[in-house]
């Protein structure tokens, strides 16, 4: 027996949203670094143009953890059809948003986040984040048959190079 329906399987890979950043500025990089290293000084790579220029990157790169979408994105499109039908804390929200029946499980918990990095974000980069439906999987655990679903977001730069791939895991049982 399985909680993964044909419709759920077919939905894997569906793009649910796309967000594009404003160009990353050296000020964004400097202030981000000042905040996350505070009260100590951040590495000069993030603050000093001369040091950044002489580094292997030949210019400013951002800390890996920088969020280029903070404050405002240049554009955002949502491809979710049923946003109005979502209910707070409904474990089936992921499927409702896609217009398919959910597995109807009662409980859910956050299964964590995993991130893979590609090329560094640089001054001037415009980052696009595309969210999509990730794989479903199941496992027998102490809570019974547990359903693992993943939401994927892939960041790419203006050259189409992958910057970051994030998988968020939702556990339902």
């Amino acid at each position, binding site marked *: 027996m399985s909680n993964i329906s044909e419709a759920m399987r077919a939905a894997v890979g569906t793009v649910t949203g796309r967000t594009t950043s404003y160009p990353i500025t050296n000020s964004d990089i400097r202030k981000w670094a*000042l*905040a996350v290293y*505070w009260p100590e000084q951040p*590495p000069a790579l993030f603050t000093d143009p001369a040091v950044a220029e002489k580094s292997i990157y030949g210019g400013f790169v951002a800390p*890996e*953890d920088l969020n280029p979408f903070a404050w405002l994105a240049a554009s955002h499109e949502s491809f979710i059809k049923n946003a109005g039908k979502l209910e707070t804390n409904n474990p089936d929200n992921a499927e409702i948003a896609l217009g398919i029946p959910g597995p109807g499980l009662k409980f859910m918990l956050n299964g*964590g986040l*995993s*991130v893979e990095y590609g090329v560094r974000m640089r001054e001037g980069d415009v980052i696009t984040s595309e969210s999509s439906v990730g794989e479903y999987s199941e496992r027998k655990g102490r809570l019974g048959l547990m359903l693992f679903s993943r939401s994927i977001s892939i960041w790419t730069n203006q050259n189409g190079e992958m910057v970051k791939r994030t998988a968020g895991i939702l556990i339902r049982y």
Partner: protein
Amino acid sequence: MTVNIGDVVPTFTRETGFANWNRYAAVNDEFVPIHMDDAAGEAAGNGGAFGMGNLQWAYLHNMLRSWIGETGEILSMEVQFRSPNVKGQTITAHGVVTAVEGDVVTLEVWTDQQDGIKLAPGTATVRMGK
């Protein structure tokens, strides 16, 4: 630098409170009541306002970035936020090498507070700088 299983990464430590959190809120536009207001944090069951998970995430990156050197790369990280970072805690980011394959190193990483209680455990992979 030769890296071996069991090697301990130099830690990254910060005493945390509104001075750090407000700065992070400012750059990340993360003005959430539970991080700014003791009453909201209390209502959420944390005894007061508490720090952003994202800031611990950043501290883990700071630790690794300094260890791998300028030509190194952080390849991946995953963590779970198990326990809140409340005011006055001294947060330390830790890493221990669990596997080495060429220049790619896998680590167990975590943040803990001054009593040694882990707040955010996880794993990371890095490519060591030349």
